[in-house]
Structure formats: C-alpha cells, structure tokens
C-alpha cells in the first residue's frame, strides 16, 4: 500500500519552493506555502494553493521554526512536507517531528541525515566503504587542537575550518596561516550555531586547485540505489557554487565509473533513500578524488541532471516518499546531452555584496534549449534576510560548446533584471573566458581571474536604452520642464 500524497507543504521559499510547486502542479498535487512577514507577496506564496504565515523575518522565527511549520501543515491538512534545499532540509530533528506528526517526509530517513550530517561520522563511513578522504580532525574547539594536529600529521597551510553541519558553502572558512586561525574558528562556530544549530567544528587540509565533482543519487525504500551520473560544480565564489554542469568535463569514462560506484557504495552502506548527493574533491593533476560530504537533500543544481537524463527528481522524491519503487534500473540511465546552469544571485558582481530591493523589470530568458527556475516576479521585493539566489538559468546542447552558446544568448540577449544588482555580468564573463571554454579551471577560478572578469562587464541592449528614454519622458511629464534646460 502506497501512502497518499495529495497535498504537500513546502517548507521553503524562493527558487526551491517554486521548483517543487511546479512538479506538484504537473501531478495535480495541491501545494501549501509558508511565509515569513516580508514574504507575504512572494512568488511561492502567489503560486501555492494556500499559504500560511509562520513568523517574522528572521529565519529562526519563521523558516526554521519547527512548531509553526508543522502546525501549518496540520491545519492545511497536508499529507507531506518537502523541505527544498537550505533551511530545514538537512535537519534530522525536523524530519523526526514531521514524521511524528503523521506527515510524510519527502526526503531521506532522519537516521541517514543524522549519519551524514555529522561530517566526522560521514568520513568514518567513507573510509569503511573504501572511499578516499581528506586528512583532518574533528570536534575542534580550540586553536591549540588545530596546531597540534597540524604538527603531528605534518599538515601545511592552507586548512579549511568547517561547521560539522555545514552545507551550501556556508559555515566554512579557509585559514592561510596561524594568525588567521582564531578569527576563522570563532566565526565558523558562530555561524554554525546560528544557521545549523550546532557549533561542532572540523578542520581539514585544503586541497589547492581542486575541482568539485558530485554524484547524484536516487534511492527507494526497496533497497535500490541508483546514481544519475555526476555534476561538475567547480566554479565557486566564497565556497558557493555559481556555475554547474553535467557531465563533468574533467573525467574520463573510467574515472566516472569509479566515482559513481564509490558514491553508490557509500549510500548503500547507510541505507539511503530519496535524492542525495555525494560530493568529491577532485585533484586533477593527480587524477585522484576525495570524499567531501553527502548532501542529504535535493540540491540546487539537480536541474541539470534532470536535463541530461530526462527525469524529474522532485517527482521521483515524491513517489519514493509514497513508498513506490524506482521506475528504472541503473542501466536505463543514459544521459544524452550537455547541460549548464548558472545561479543568478542578487549580488554586486564585483564585491558579491548582497543587493536587495524591488525588481522593477524582469525578463526571463526564453527560446530553445533553455530552462528557467525562477524565484520571483517583476515587481517583487527581495528582502535582505535570506539567500541571494533569485533565478536558476539552465541551458542544454548536444555538447558543451552548444550549451555554452545557448547560455551566452540566454544571459546576454534575453535576461533583463532591473532594481537589484545581479551576478549576470560576472556569469557571462566567466562562460566567455577562454579557460572556462577550454575546461581548465579550479575552485579558485574566480578569485584568480576576478580583475579580468570584471573588466569585461557591460552589455548594451536597445530595449534597455529605450527604457532610459521612457524614464526621461515619465519624469518630465510628471515634473514639467527642468530648470537646467
């Protein structure tokens, strides 16, 4: 007997909430949105069938508020809760609460989240499954412990200080020398406590010029664990991915097989169910990969895997949560195209400082081979309290070159956003950079090339220019002849 899922509460906002609602709409599943005070008219609220206010602006009062979210789900008579990504998506205690409330949790079992949420535990399991790991120590509270470990294990700088429960690039800092350790440690602990509710910290050797490659896993309650191939997420700024692609241009067939089967092995070991990702750091000069962590949730960049495989991962998550077996075997998974994704963040493309305000004009890219995953609409207000992601733009092609060409058109010709600053100019400069086109890059690509990337900004468009003329007409019509004329 499968569980009945006819109404889903999405415990999220913005791009992930909208993404999940699209699949629900495909399946005629009713949706329940939750929102904080400043999100009263946000896109996910507009899109949902019903919506519940769950608290004030601060995430801890609303999108991280277990009680309010669960009571909204019960009040709405929802059957299930999908956490999206970020917020409570990797919170095992919240998953427990959802299940205890008699609701279906659309995600991995709380035990799996727990096992992988603890980075130290996760590394131990990886070692057990014969998956290589990066040298490091766990449960760090003082600088002295870090110094001792570095001395004993002969580790040199740089090192990475991470919240045990870190994710999404948040809650981690690099230290280049002894002097940077105290401040970095203090900040990571503070962020860890605030955003993940757990201030346990681990420290690892930092692999320089590494590449970030991950494997998408999907598993059911019937013991089947399948991978949907890998994604390359090497282009990052401040440890946050901003461009992802599938497949990875760094791997050959043999390494790809090795990587994917390592991921499957690990997930089988922990009895994983639902969608999840095993992340690896790839040292391209030595052709070696190291286990980084498991993301026990739907990932931002899942869309490109959907594009190359033709599957709907969110849809499969819902079916798996209902108890259905995966409708395919590993051998059925045959990717047949290239897909590229950019994260359009509302940030200053030079400084990465967040930008918020009202979106006064918005045109989404359109046309062949483009997929848009939006988080807001023209006229919407971006509040300063949450993640800066406002839209995902994906492009596909028969090969990488094709996909890059489509992406170039999508960003430079089709996309128009006014009212806030976005990363668009930077993203465009990156995909036009010869090193990116050649596939030669590391996680430090942006910091190494920032000056050059920034200098290529600026694209003029005839409609943008025409709207400037219209703005003049509007002002003069309202205010009369200006004095300076």
């Amino acid at each position, binding site marked *: 007997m499968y569980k009945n899922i006819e109404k889903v509460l999405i415990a999220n906002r913005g791009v992930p909430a909208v993404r999940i609602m699209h699949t629900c709409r495909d399946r005629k599943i009713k949706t329940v949105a939750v929102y904080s005070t400043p999100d009263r008219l946000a896109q996910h609220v507009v899109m949902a069938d019903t919506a519940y206010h769950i608290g004030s602006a601060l995430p801890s009062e609303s999108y991280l508020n277990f009680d309010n979210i669960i009571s909204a789900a019960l009040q709405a008579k929802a059957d299930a809760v999908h956490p999206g990504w970020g917020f409570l998506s990797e919170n095992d205690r919240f998953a427990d609460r959802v299940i205890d409330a008699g609701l279906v949790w659309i995600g991995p079992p709380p035990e799996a989240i727990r096992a992988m949420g603890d980075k130290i535990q996760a590394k131990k399991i990886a070692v057990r499954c014969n998956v290589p790991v990066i040298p490091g120590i766990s449960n760090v509270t003082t600088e002295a412990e870090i110094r001792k470990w570095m001395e004993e294990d002969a580790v040199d700088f740089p090192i990475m200080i991470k919240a045990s429960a870190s994710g999404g690039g*948040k809650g981690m800092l690099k230290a280049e020398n002894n002097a940077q350790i105290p*401040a970095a440690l*203090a*900040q990571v602990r*503070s*962020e860890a406590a605030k*955003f993940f509710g757990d201030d346990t910290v681990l420290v690892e050797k930092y692999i320089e010029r590494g590449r970030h490659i991950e494997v998408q896993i999907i598993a059911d309650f019937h013991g089947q664990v399948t991978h949907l191939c890998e994604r390359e997420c090497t282009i990052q700024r*401040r440890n946050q991915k901003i461009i992802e692609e599938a497949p990875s241009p760094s791997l050959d067939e043999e390494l790809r097989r090795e990587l994917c089967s390592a991921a499957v092995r690990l997930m089988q070991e922990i009895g994983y169910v639902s969608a999840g990702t095993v992340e690896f750091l790839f040292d391209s000069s030595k052709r070696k990969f190291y286990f980084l962590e498991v993301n026990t949730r739907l990932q931002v960049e899942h869309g490109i895997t959907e594009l190359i495989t033709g599957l709907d991962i969110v849809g499969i998550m819902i079916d798996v949560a209902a108890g259905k077996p995966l409708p395919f075997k590993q051998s059925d998974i045959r990717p047949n195209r290239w897909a590229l994704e950019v994260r359009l963040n509302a*940030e200053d493309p030079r*400084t990465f*400082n*967040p*930008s*918020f305000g009202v979106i006064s004009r918005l045109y989404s890219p359109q046309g062949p081979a483009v997929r848009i995953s939006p988080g807001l609409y023209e006229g919407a207000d971006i509040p*300063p*309290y*949450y*993640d*800066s992601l406002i839209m995902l733009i994906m492009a596909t092609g028969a090969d990488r070159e094709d996909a890059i060409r489509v992406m170039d058109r999508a960003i430079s010709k089709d996309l128009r956003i006014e009212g806030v600053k976005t990363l668009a100019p930077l993203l465009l400069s990156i995909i036009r950079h010869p090193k990116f086109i050649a596939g030669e890059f590391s996680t430090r690509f942006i910091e190494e090339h920032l000056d050059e990337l920034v*200098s290529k900004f*600026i694209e003029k468009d*005839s409609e*943008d*220019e*025409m*709207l*400037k*003329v*219209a*703005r*003049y*007409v*509007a*002002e*003069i*019509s*309202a*205010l*009369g*002849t200006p004095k*300076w*004329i």
Partner: protein
Amino acid sequence: MKNYIFVQPGLTPAEIVRRVRSLKGVCLSTTSLRDAGQSDYKNRLRIYDLKTLAPCYNQMGLFSAECHGGARWHVGLMNRKESPFEELEILRSLMPDVLLKTLIRETSLWGYRPYPPNVIKYVVSQVDIDIWRCFSFLNDIRNMRMAAETVMSRGKLFEPAICFTQADWATDDYYLKLVKDIVAMCGGTDEIILDIKDMAGVGSPRRIGSLVDAIKQQYPDLVIQYHRHTTDGLALPALLAAAQAGAKILDVEEDSLARFYGQPPILAVHAYLEEFGIPVHLNRKEAEAAVQKVRTWIRHYEWAESPFKGFDHHVVYHRMPGGAFPSSFEQAENGDFLHLMPEILTLMSYYNKIIRYFDVTPGSQITWVTCSSIVNKYMKEGGKSGVKHLLALMARFVEDKRQDFSSMEKEEQEELYQLFRSASGDFKNLILGGYGRLPMGWPDDWVYVSAFGEEWEDKIKERSELSPLDSLADESMEKQKRTLAVSIGREPSEEEFILYLMHPKDALQFIQFRDMYGEAPLVLPTDVWLEGLRKPGGKVDFEFNGKPCTIELLSVGGEHDGYIHVVMSVNNKTRVYKVSTPRAKQVEIRMAKGPLEIGAPINGNLWRIGNPKRGMLKVGDIVHQGEEIASIEAMKMENAVTAPFDAQIEEICVKLNGIVQEGQTLFVLRQDDQTETQSPGSSTVIDTPWPG
C-alpha cells in the same frame, strides 16, 4: 542637375585653398549649426532639429558648415545633454560631402583655461574635424602655434582668425603685422584660410573694405573669410564691401533663423551680392528648402531667444560679441539685474578702453563678469544714484581726462583704487599675463593697485609676457583619466575623457545624465524633450536604433509622500514609473566620512555590536586595532567590522538588529592622547586605511 559641390572632406588643405581661389565670386559658409544658435538662442538648438538641414547642406555647394566648438560645446553638455562627438557623427553621416568646421580658442580649445601643449596636441588629434578656425582673444599669434602644428601635420585645414574691432589703435598696420606672423607660422598662404572675426558685428562697411583690401594688397593669394555678426544692423553692406575688396568666403545662416546677433541671412546675401555683380556660389533651391525647414521647428525655441530684442548699434561702444549676448542676458535675468543692462553695457564701453583686448571668449566673460559685478556692487551700496555716480566717474576719467590718472581728484583716485578690488581671479590672472601678453600693452599701474592693493608692485614683477604654451608644464593625462574612471565607476571612452578635460564638473554630470537617460536628448522631438507628454493619451513616436518606438502617457498620479506615479505604455507594455518630486522625503542615512567614522562594509543586518569576548560595546569603551567591534549578517554570511586603530567609542550610530547600508556610519571613534597612552603601539594610526 548641376553639381554645386566644389570642396569635400578628404581633400588636402592646399587643394581646398586652390579651389576656393579659382572660384568666381564668393562662396558661403553656414553657421546655423553653431554660431547662429549661440548668438540668438543661447545654444539651445538641438541636433535633433538642426540635422534636418543636413541633407540640404549636402547639396548646397557650401564652402563649409561650422557645427562645432565655441560655447555650443559647453552648453551641449550642460543644457542640451548632447555630446559634440555625437553631433559630428550624425552630421558626417547626413552630409558626407560638407567640410565640417570647429571654432577653437587657441590654448583653451573648447574650455576656459589655458592647456599645456601636450593636452592641446592630444585633444586636437582625437576630433574628426576638417577645418579648424582658431582665434586668440589677445590676437597673440604665438598662442596658436601648438594647435596650428597639430592641425596642419594631420592634413587638416587650419583657419587662423584675427579678432577684429574698430578702435583708434586697431589700424591696418596692426592687423597686417598679425597676418605677417600668421603667414610666417603657417609657412605661406597656400594651406590656410585667413578669417577676419568680427564677433561683435562692429565693422563699418568702409573699414572692412579697406582692411580686406590692405591685406590683399600685401598677400594677393591669401584666401580671406569674413565672419560677422549682425548686431549693428550693417552686416549686408559690410559683407558686400568685404567681397568687393576680395574676401572669398562669407558666413551666413538661414533667413528664418536670423534674429539680431547672429550671421546675416543667406538668401538676402545671395540676392544682394549678385545684384552688385558678385557671383555667389550657391544652390539657391536647396538654400530655400533649408530656410523652409527651419520654420518647421524654430517655434520650439522662442523661449531661448534673448530678452533684449532688436539691433543694437551701441555695440560699437560696448562691443559685446554676438555670441555672448544671450548668455549674458540670461545671467542678468537669473541674477535679477536685467534692468541694469544699459548701465553694464555703458561701463563695458569704458572698461575696454582701460584694459585693451578683444571681447571674445574668454575675454568677453572676464569683461562681463567684471563689469556686471561692479555695477551690481554700486547698485547694492548706493542704489540707482550710486550707479549713476559710477558712470559719471568713468566718463570723467576716460573721456574728459583721457585716462590721465594724476589729473583726477584725490577722492576720485581713491574710488578708482577700489574699482577692481573684488574682481575675479580670472581678471587678475589676465592682467598678470596668465593668458599671454595683452595686444596693446598692460593697463596702467592704478589698475594693479586697484586689483591687488599693497601687493601691486610685487604682482607687476610676477607679470609674464610668455605665451601659456611656454609657461605651462605638460599635465599627466593618465592621472586625470584615472580620476574620471573612479568618478564614473567605469573606464571612460576617449570622447568622455576629452569632455572631462575641457569641462570637468559638467562632463561628469553629463555622463551621469546619459548613463541614466540614455539617448533621450538625441531621439526625442523637441516639444517632448522640453515638456514631456502633457496629457493622458499624449503620444510620441520615434525611431531608436533603427527600430520604431512609441511612448504613450496613460496617466500621471497625484503626489503622495513626495512621489508621483506615471503610467505609460512603452511599445504597448504598461509601465509604472515612480518619480520623486523635490518634496520627496529623503531618508537621511549618515554615511561615514573620514578616519574616525566607521562605515558598514556591506548591506545587511547588524546583529552584533561588540564581540563574543567582550559582549556588547557601549559609548566610552576603548577598542583596539583589529578588534571586532560589530558583525553584519547578510544572506547567511557574517562580516566582521574591526577597529582600524586604538580608539574610544564616542558614538554608536545604529541600533542592534537594524538593517544598515553599505557605507552607513556605525561608529564614531575618538582618538586622543589618552587613548594613545593607554594603548601603546598605535603610532601607525595615520597610515591605517579605513573603510569607505
């Protein structure tokens, strides 16, 4: 159909000169694109309208079109928001067969200060102009050297101008000496055209005839152009006299554009000269078409016309140049002293006998500012009778006593000693030789006493006879370019940089305006440019980047909290514009300035003041260099704010858990001996960079 084109861009200067020489009779140069608008319409004629004349000009058989330079340049930036480079590009494409001409001030080009040789060379090399008409308001030919060299070495036509005035000292010999210097500087008469610049319109027909004749006697091959304003009402006979004496090129404008201070009307000049047997090279049909064209748009500019209407034969005394008329009257109107104009003009007629130079930019500005402020000062202190007293004093000194200072009464001398006491820096710079030597020698000593008081003798010792070209050191253009890049937040184009070199403040405002409103100044019809769409349903169609556009006004809302919402249909899409009025409430956000005010590094939520170790900080606490004093969180990232040096907290300007803006003041610190003694090692404070 007869082809009237006899000179074109691309010809060598020698070839152009040869073709003009071999022409029977005279040819014409139009000033409608520049000086006509400057003299009668405060330079407000927009390229949007002027360009409609270009197709006619392209077939009219003109010698050239003066379309660039003078004050049109500066007013373009300030008031029309047009760049002279855009104008050139538009005109080039619409009239490719016409020689384009600019007017430059010898060392200050299109700006107001003298530039060093490297800047002159750089700027002149960047501008796509065929003929460079160049004048010195001091008639100091030395000052033209750099411009002449650069123009001629680039194969462009150099047209040196001699500034003309009618005065006892302005004799044929005086002018012939200038022409001699010009011919020597330019290596003969085969590659230049000599311009007689009668910028005030004061040359009587006989005087002009005799001057042209005197020059032609000495230099029979020299091609002469006569540029004249109509201010005194005698332009037509003066042009005839010039042509009869051998001038080959005459400046004209459309009859329908002509008012009182610009150039004479083209069709009238054509008819009048031909009646006297002088052939005029002109496609009259096209000239008539251009005259009609002007009528389709000139009514939009009535507001820009001078409030002082009618010819003014008094110009032979006060000598205000036609090009300065509208702007002077505009300033008088804005400064609320329009009623004092007759007195100011009278004072100018005395002034130009005391300090002798030519009333043309920048000299005309100096004359105007000096005289208008003296009259205003007397008005303020003594009312109408005070001004009357001033003019009586000047009449007595200049006319009765022939400027013999010693023959004036003691108290009159004392009063004259005060005359220039509050004169502008430009005036003082002028009499010290900052612009070069004055054409008729330095003013008398009492002028220096008047301007400088007790220091007058030292100042006279400083006075220089050198040309600014020899006294000014080269300037680093790289440095200025970087300053501009920082101000506008991006790399400037070459053209923007030149605008900035000439008019730094106004160029910046212009660039910001254009970044905001794009090509509005170029594409909007003049009524919409001036007044917008006046009522709902009002519509404007225009072409933009080769595509049709329509903007329709749907509604203008009432004012609410200082904002008006304007709803427009822009290419069929409804758009709402929030327009702030002068009453819009400015949310006062205090931005950090100077080393003692600590600004927020990013936008975000100020969630901690202080640090975990010390807890919350309060006013009076001592903080140490590098210590975290606040933390701002934005999009799940914490950003520490640290103390840039050891200091005491004097003020905490924000509330905990409040949203702060990048640059907003968070703390004001205090640093004094006390904090320094408490925290040794803070001696590097001054070198420490601070945020913002």
